[in-house]
């Protein structure tokens, strides 16, 4: 059973959450006309063996969108932040 430490609600079972999307992709700049960049953004995803950054929704809880790290091999859960704080958390960790 995956358990996710929601920043609002605390440690909860995965059954309260819904997977949203890959949080590691970045949308190209709107003025970017490179077709391949947009094809990669819309359709192509890596399928890593190991840590992966993902959006999850705490749909049966605080209803907040989260960005968390999940190990696709072990299903371990790493850091978990509110999506709106996630970029800030990444910058803080990089310092």
């Amino acid at each position: 059973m995956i358990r996710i430490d929601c920043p609002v609600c605390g440690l909860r079972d995965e059954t309260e959450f819904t997977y949203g999307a890959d949080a590691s992709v970045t949308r190209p700049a709107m003025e970017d006309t490179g077709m391949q960049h947009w094809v990669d953004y819309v359709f192509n995803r890596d399928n890593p063996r190991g840590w992966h950054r993902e959006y999850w929704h705490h749909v049966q809880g605080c209803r907040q969108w989260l960005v968390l790290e999940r190990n696709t091999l072990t299903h371990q859960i790493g850091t978990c932040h509110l999506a709106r704080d996630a970029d800030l958390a990444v910058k803080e960790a990089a310092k």
Partner: protein
Amino acid sequence: MAEALSPLHHTITPGRYGVAGDVGITLGTRQIAGLWQIAGWQGFDRAAAPVLAAMGLHDGGSYRRAEQAGAVTAWRIAPDKILIEGAPDLSAHSSDDLVTLDLGHARTAITLGGAAARDLLMQLCAVDCSAAAFAPGAFIQTGIHHVGVLIHCTGPDSFDILVPGTWAETIWEALHHNALPHGYEVSADNNSRISRTNPT
């Protein structure tokens, strides 16, 4: 003016149900009066502070603990969102920085009590509801029967469950079926009317 009734007004029948012996659980419903949600964006706490202060509230509590001020109860359900019961009409406080929303018609309050109440909750939701983990004054947002609910611990073995009105019967049925092995009672003094008028 038409009288607003709880979605459970024809579902709840006072009586004794389930196994014979001691009653482990009491179920019922209660009136919801003046249920409002205030929400915002960055700067929410600053925008909400005067509204909360006007009701005698300090900061709306934490994500796990409700704040009480007289007949007013506040639950901080998300970073920029507070649910308030017992509030007067808050619509005049809406601004570019704060959104107020009357939810009085949208929730039903189910009351749960008794020595087996915590066991029943833990049958239905994947959260530790033991006395050590879920003390009076605390609240959790979780799912019962895949429906999002807010459970407020109002006493050592008593709880209010705020459920979406459109799912009230579903939740009641889930509680009913799981309470049968404990033996439960529905008291005759349930108030299944919804108050759409706010307390003054």
